[in-house]
């Protein structure tokens, strides 16, 4: 019996057998202007020669699985002969779902896993619970931790005590990578070039040049300076998909402060955009979303926890999800949480080696755990008791 671990994110699926390694694969379909008639699924993205104006078809809406047709196409591709060649008669699955997943989505999930694909056993679990499991395995003396999971659709802050999630402390901020990319697209389109159709390209710009500022207003002042004093300013070379396959940041020594280049590349000049965009994670109100930022929400969430647990939470803040890759994210979060917390608490923020796959690694560990057999629902169980047994066993 093998176990397939699938952290089914709204933007990428993290998938692999528990005895093997993980792959990060787009969890969506694409259409391209240049190859009409064809819809590309998941990692077929690499086959598209000219991904300008790439059209996304996503199975998730606001972080919840709604478009099952697309999801099944992606899963067919992942489980099928092109990729994982799953032998359903001899495979269990660990699959992740968002917090407070809707009942009807949970039921559809049971049906598809057991009836459609016919997995032998399944464990449906929150990605954060897998991250917490991984953290407690590695730090066995710690009693509590707070998982900050900042992904594509939203950011969740979830306290865990001895492996149990504290439902009252769960906090969701409706800011994720998608919002950041769309915002960057919007401001570049207003200020410089029309790039509203180029989600794929601008997402790459965001990943390449954006960072989290440590001194926000100071960086704002620097970004307003002229010439060499403006150390924030960067020129980004956009891809044309013929000679430049992938966009990149002009090396500082080649940068011309006039913004004029002899070579004919198209350039984006980025100044305050570089740090004002990720700043939305810390101050969603900057764009009019009336919600707390991550540090404030985190402190608020812990303040609702029992007094004796608080020091343990502040000491074990774990960062997961793609947004934590922004340079400076960890340091800024530490700084902000530190300033909002009484000095007698020790604050420690841990950023794992690979924050995107941290939950998957937790799933891998869990699948090897002796208690794993107890946690899953087998196909027999499901056929005997239906949704009821899943509802009882899985804590979503």
């Amino acid at each position, binding site marked *: 019996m093998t176990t397939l671990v699938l952290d089914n994110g709204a933007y990428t699926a993290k998938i692999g057998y528990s005895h093997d390694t993980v792959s990060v694969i787009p969890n969506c379909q694409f259409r391209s202007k240049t190859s009409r008639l064809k819809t590309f699924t998941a990692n077929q993205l690499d086959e598209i020669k000219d991904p300008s104006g790439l059209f996304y078809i996503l199975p998730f809406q606001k972080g919840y699985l709604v478009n099952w047709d697309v999801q099944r196409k992606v899963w067919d591709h992942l489980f099928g002969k092109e990729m994982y060649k799953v032998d359903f008669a001899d495979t269990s699955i660990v699959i992740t779902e968002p917090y*407070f997943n809707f009942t009807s989505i949970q039921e559809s999930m049971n049906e598809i896993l057991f009836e459609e694909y016919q997995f032998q056993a399944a464990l449906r679990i929150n990605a954060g619970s897998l991250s917490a499991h991984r953290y407690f395995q590695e730090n066995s003396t710690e009693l509590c931790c707070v998982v900050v999971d900042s992904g594509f659709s939203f950011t969740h802050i979830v306290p865990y005590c001895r492996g149990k999630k504290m439902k009252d402390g769960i906090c969701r901020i409706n800011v994720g990578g998608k919002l950041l990319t769309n915002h960057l697209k919007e401001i570049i389109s207003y200020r410089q070039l*029309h790039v509203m159709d180029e989600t794929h390209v601008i997402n790459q710009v965001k990943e390449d040049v954006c960072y989290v500022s440590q001194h926000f207003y100071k960086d704002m002042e620097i970004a307003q300076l002229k010439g060499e004093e403006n150390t924030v300013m960067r020129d980004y070379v956009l891809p044309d998909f013929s000679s430049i396959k992938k966009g990149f940041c002009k090396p500082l020594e080649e940068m011309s402060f006039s913004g004029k280049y002899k070579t004919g590349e198209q350039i984006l000049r980025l100044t305050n955009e570089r740090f004002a965009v990720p700043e939305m994670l810390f*101050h969603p109100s900057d764009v009019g979303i009336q919600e707390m930022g991550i540090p404030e929400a985190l402190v608020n969430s812990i303040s609702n926890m029992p007094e004796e647990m608080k020091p343990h939470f502040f000491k074990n803040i774990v960062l997961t999800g793609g947004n934590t890759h922004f340079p400076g994210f960890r340091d800024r979060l530490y700084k902000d949480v530190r300033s909002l917390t009484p000095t007698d608490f020790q604050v420690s923020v841990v950023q794992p080696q690979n924050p995107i796959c941290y939950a998957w690694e937790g799933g891998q560990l869990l699948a090897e755990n002796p208690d794993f057999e107890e946690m899953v629902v087998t196909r027999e169980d499901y056929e005997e008791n239906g949704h009821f047994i899943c509802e009882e066993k899985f804590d979503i």
Partner: protein
Amino acid sequence: MYCKRSAKYSPWMLHRYSLVRSQDPNQRRVLDSATRQRRLNRQLEALEKDNFQDDPHASLPPLIKRLPQFDENNESGKRRKKTRGDHFKQRFRKNFQTLLEEEDLSVSEGPNYLTACAEPSKFPQRHFCAVCGFPSNYTCVSCGARYCCVRCLGTHHETRCLKWTV
């Protein structure tokens, strides 16, 4: 492939002060708070969109299903399993809003999707120029947008004040 903003709307264009100042304050149209809120909501909704452009396949005629061929018979057993009754299909075609309403969370006890949302911040809101993104000290009287200098105000008036042009 990435088309330049037409020079007419270039935010970096210089504006004559008179252009901005000449408006008679009594004749200026002012948006009420409900309209301002509607505008903000529209902007926030746009930030949730998957794509800005239309589906490149939208203009194509729908694919005509291939007629069954005789040598496909041996596959039909597998195929039948995948197609189900209509009611099944219906269940899989609901958008986020419908699902949320169906959950009927307003009456349920304990933490749920709605209660988990972060509360409004206790810190005062910060303001940035709607044109250039730098800290701003002024508010546009007509629409409530923020701006930092006369130059940006000019661009704002021309592009996104009462009429949203770009």
